């Protein structure tokens, strides 16, 4: 029976597990990620040459880190539940869609529907996000360091959307209880979305979000808060023009 070199085995377990998508199919990557069990030593993963692949690292449910070296297509980190994913590039539509917990950071820009329907966790876009950012969000926190496009936070139910730059048309249309914080200009507000008073608890909440997102040199007091006027919560014929 060969002797086991304990120190070498430990070294290997702590090294990143590298997955090169130019050599291995996407299916094997996601299956390997899903095969992880609680307490696994394989806590650091690196994905090379994503080249715009869709569904990279979807449905991960273990507290691991995944560094994706390049840009990804649709739904990167979809339904993420606990892992910390960093995209060292830009992300296609639906990055972090329906995230449950954990975090996703996009170093570049994100396309449409970033963080759509997210239930929890933190999504950070260091560049800009396109239209419908945070659509139907249900508890996720989203921090966009650049601008966001039109119809963002459409029907947003819960959670926080923080935008350091500007927001496009119809921000927060038909919004429920999500909170929107925008530092720059808002092109227009959607139906039932209004500017709201920034109270101390909001400043505290926002500062916490900025800290978690690693944003420095920006003060919570520079933002305006937007949310639901709650006039469309129950049908009223006199509001028919807003429907």
């Amino acid at each position, binding site marked *: 029976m060969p002797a086991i070199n304990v120190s070498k085995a430990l070294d290997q377990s702590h090294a990143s597990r590298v997955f090169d998508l130019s050599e291995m199919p996407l299916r094997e990557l996601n299956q390997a990620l899903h095969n992880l069990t609680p307490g696994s030593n394989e806590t650091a993963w690196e994905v090379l040459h994503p080249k715009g692949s869709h569904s990279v690292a979807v449905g991960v449910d273990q507290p691991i880190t995944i560094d994706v070296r390049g840009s990804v297509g649709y739904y990167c980190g979809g339904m993420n539940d606990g892992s910390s994913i960093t995209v060292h590039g830009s992300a296609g*539509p639906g990055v972090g869609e329906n995230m449950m917990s954990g975090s996703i950071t996009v170093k570049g820009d994100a396309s449409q529907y970033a963080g759509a329907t997210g239930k929890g966790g933190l999504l950070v876009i260091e560049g800009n996000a396109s239209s419908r950012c945070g659509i139907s969000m249900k508890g996720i926190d989203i921090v966009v360091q650049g601008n966001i496009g039109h119809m963002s936070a459409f029907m947003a*139910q819960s959670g926080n959307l923080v935008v350091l730059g500007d927001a496009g048309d119809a921000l927060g249309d038909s919004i429920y209880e999500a909170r929107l914080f925008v530092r720059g200009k808002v092109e227009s507000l959607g139906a039932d979305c209004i500017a709201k008073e920034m109270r101390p608890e909001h400043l505290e909440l926002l500062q916490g979000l900025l800290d978690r997102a690693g944003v420095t040199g920006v003060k919570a007091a520079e933002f305006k808060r937007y949310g639901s006027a709650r006039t469309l919560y129950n*049908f009223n014929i006199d509001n028919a023009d807003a429907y």
Partner: protein
Amino acid sequence: MTYRNPPTTPRKSATFDDYTLSEIRRAAATGIYDIRGAGAKRKLPHFDDLLFLGASISRYPLEGYRERCDTSVVLGSRHAKKPIELKIPITIAGMSFGSLSGPAKEALGRGATLSGTSTTTGDGGMTEEERGHSQTLVYQYLPSRYGMNPRDLRRADAIEIVVGQGAKPGGGGMLLGQKISDRVAEMRTLPKGIDQRSASRHPDWTGPDDLEIKILELREITDWEKPIYVKVGGARPYYDTALAVKSGADVVVIDGMQGGTAATQEVFIENVGQPTLACIRPAVQALQDLGMHRKVQLIVSGGIRNGADVAKALALGVDAVSIGTAALVALGDNDPRWEADYNELGTTAGAYDDWHEGRDPAGITTQDPELMKRVDPIAAGRRLANYLKVMTLEAQTIARACGKNSLHNLEPEDLVALTIEAAAMAGVPLAGTNWIPGKNGF
């Protein structure tokens, strides 16, 4: 004695009939469109307009109680590692916890499980009662994504991406404030008591090219184990079927306009979408044109009531049918035993459709803790199982009479139509003729 001209009989307008007049008065009084549950109530060409020919000199029957007539069906064999096998080709359609009470959902799961078939979640996510009592559970993936999470996705037996439904192709879900209880609000991440109007479009994909990528994502999350259905309302059945197949669906579900809803505008239910009968042949044709008939399974719903409807749908090329309204009736919906309560609500047993108000005397379409006690999930589940058994026996009776040892061997050649409309829609000859309208140049 004075002569009086004979009076004419008072005559009501066929155009402005009593119902229409009452609706104009209601609209004028309230300023809001009428919302109700269930599907289209107007008379439509339907399975009643088709007849089976049965056996004759050239076709011989199977013995009614002795020769086997298979009823099983496998769904999802195209891509899924774990396709589902059902004992009968009748499934329970998606109905949400929220629109239905917990006991009603449990009863559906019990009845389906006793019958060896599947039941389906709805626009409120998956409940423990439902998962626990359903051997085979289809998990709907809806535009609202209420309660959607990867854990439930993985413990589902199949995933149904809902693009639309027959009662309202192009409309989103609706659950009015009366039914948003604490538990329903919690599951949907919404404030209690608000009118919940779900999105009509999916938030993160539009069009068939995106759908293909979305299906890939769901397959990757579930390691390619689960069959993926795509459900559409009866709008453009030929192209919707073709595009669902192109997008990678394992199963296509088409819901005609008689298919029910928990709550939608009356004008939508009665005026948008096509009858179930009109949807089947175009959908089957699309599958045949793509060489995918029987490889991608087709499920049809909307107005399926008995074994004859099942047999006719299967003869037209469908792999399975789905029932919603009929299943609720089996549980006890619109039962005359609650007539006094229906009268109090200004209606009568058989006509009650204000399911959105949450005051259902039968305790099915409600979140009222007292009313929902009227549903005993064990007894109601048993009634559903009985009903499914009867439907299956009826369909087998017809199939054997047509000489078929499997329900799936029924074919359009076994059918004729009673009306020109049904003949054109079903693509079978008008009874007594060899005329199929639209075929052979006339």
